[in-house]
């Protein structure tokens, strides 16, 4: 079944093959970035990126950049 989540406030159709937080980061090209991730109002600790991404999840990802 196709999963639809809310990612950073916008509707997002989760691509096939993306089942965990880590796979979502990989897909978004953010896996080598330092990021703070929240799933359904709880922070996902760095060691828990194998947590599943489920239909209707609300996920927030804020990654750090250097510029200014």
């Amino acid at each position, binding site marked *: 079944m196709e999963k639809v989540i809310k990612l950073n406030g916008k509707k997002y159709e989760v691509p096939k093959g993306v089942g965990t937080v880590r796979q979502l980061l990989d897909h978004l090209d953010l896996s080598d970035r330092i990021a703070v991730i929240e799933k359904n109002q709880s922070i996902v600790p760095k060691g828990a990126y194998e947590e599943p991404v489920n239909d209707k999840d609300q996920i927030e990802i804020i990654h750090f950049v250097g*510029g200014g």
Partner: protein
Amino acid sequence: MPIGKNGQERLGKSAVFILGAGALGSSGAEMLVRAGVGKVTIVDRDYVEWSNLHRQQLYTEQDVAERLPKAICAERRLTAINSDVRICGIVTDVTAENIQSLIAGHDVLLDATDNMETRLLANDAACKMGLPFFMGACVGSYGLTFPFGVQTQQPCLHCLLETLPAQTMTCDTAGIISPAVVTTAARQAAGVLKYLATGEMEPKLESADMWTGERSSIDVSGLKKSDCPSCSEHASYPFLTLGSSIRPAVLCGRDTVQLSWPRNKRLELPLFVQSVRKVVSNLVHNPYLVACEYHGHRIVLFHDGRMLVHGTKSITTAEKIASELVG
């Protein structure tokens, strides 16, 4: 009224330290100066270039032509905007050696640096000196902000990073659009004004992407690390003890090497102009720096004893050029 008469009076008595006079620094400084803070100190190590003008709102084509340092142009422009505000522009590289004396006497630190090393140095100094810190960073169409430092149970920037930044993160070479700068700076400035007027701060990590419309806000208060080397009870402030300002440095994403001379060996700019006049081209000099071309490299010598050698990432090449010019 969010600020009110009392808040405005408090603003007028406050001093803001702005670390960097690039894109975020230009934009944030203009908002705070127009709002009527009492004093703004703005520090930057660089000079104005053509490629800055689409987003660094305090500068003009004339500033580029004169090769003026950003801190000097910023002070002039900000003073012209609001002469009631005491503005102090300082041309220097902010380092572990000088940061504490630079930020002393200010009420807040506005982060407008363009690299994570300096940001973490500022984080250490702000934590040590108990100065509220308004972090901001942006690239492309994206920016993020994070204020902290009012409540000790909240995390600092170092707590959030956990692992130290990879090289890829400190060297953003992608372009940036001005709206990303302005929204990031606006969030920082709103946080500064609210804190100065009311003493309140919401320590939220927030981001916005002006191209995709994504925005995010995360309550990070649970991420305080009890053993953080920068903000815990037994902090060692690692970035305040690292490195030396006279060490050569490759400036990330700039194809530029910065060399520095110790205080006792600095060159007088007029003497430098005399000695290189015959071997360089496109010589431009002002009271703050000398810029010229030498063997295809653009060279800039600042009065604080730093030399930028553009067009190379090799410290050896830069040092060879410096020794040919300076002897």
